[in-house]
């Protein structure tokens, strides 16, 4: 199942994890030390973030490190920007239509 990225970043713990590993790649244990929740709880958040491709695993020796997928974070902003453009264009058309309607009423 494809996960919704908004859903992924809607959770405060997941946002804190993103902020944490934005600075440097970290092991699950090191990440868990920053939170009061259980290791399992943190693992679940890491799994969701990985499924959304917001973070990725990297194996270094026997350890797994999690690091941030910067491009994916940028992608969110890209979609939002394009959504904004659709509405901007729609509003401009409405403005043109309103101007036409006003003129028509004035002529009558």
């Amino acid at each position, binding site marked *: 199942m494809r996960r919704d*990225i*908004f859903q992924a970043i809607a959770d405060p713990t997941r946002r804190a994890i993103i902020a944490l590993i934005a600075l440097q790649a970290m092991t699950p244990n090191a990440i868990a030390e920053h939170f009061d929740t259980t290791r399992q709880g943190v693992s679940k958040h890491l799994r969701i973030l990985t499924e959304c491709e917001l973070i990725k695993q990297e194996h270094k020796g026997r350890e797994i490190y999690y690091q941030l997928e910067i491009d994916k974070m940028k992608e*969110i902003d890209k*979609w939002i920007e394009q959504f904004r453009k659709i509405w901007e264009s729609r509003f401009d058309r409405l403005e043109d239509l*309103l*101007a036409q309607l006003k003129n028509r009423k004035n002529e009558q």
Partner: protein
Amino acid sequence: MNNDLLFDFSVDKENKTVYMTREFNAGLDLVWEAWTTAELLDKWWGPKPYVTKTKIMDFEDGGRRFFAMVSPEGQERWFIQKFSAISPKTHFKTYNTFADADENPELPGSEWDYKFSEQNGKTKVSITIYNESLDRMERMVEMGAIKGCAVQYDQLEELLAVLKLKV
């Protein structure tokens, strides 16, 4: 194009909420009509190069608008907006979903809240979208992908028109 008119857009990613405010150089009566009448909606909803065709428009609490956005190639994408909390010329809400041509909705959808107010002959429309998903946004944008170019051509055309006047 209308640089003196307000257009605000912001997104609260944490709460999955989108805010938009746009000012129009027209009175409240006309703006309200343009948002609530099928015939007028179809003239501006686009976005270019899409054409919007409203099949059912039942603007009352519990009523709905069932419409398609049609691409230049004739491909149809269907949507449902279910109306509620209508307060004439002031406010209404919609619950928006993608749908198929037989009006089966794809749940969940998103909740839209529209507020209208007039001041000094200009009308402000404020829209808040709750529970928007990036997935839905992506799908909207996919449709609008071609549109990016179309808008630029429009702007070029407008520029050319202005230049013609000056010559």
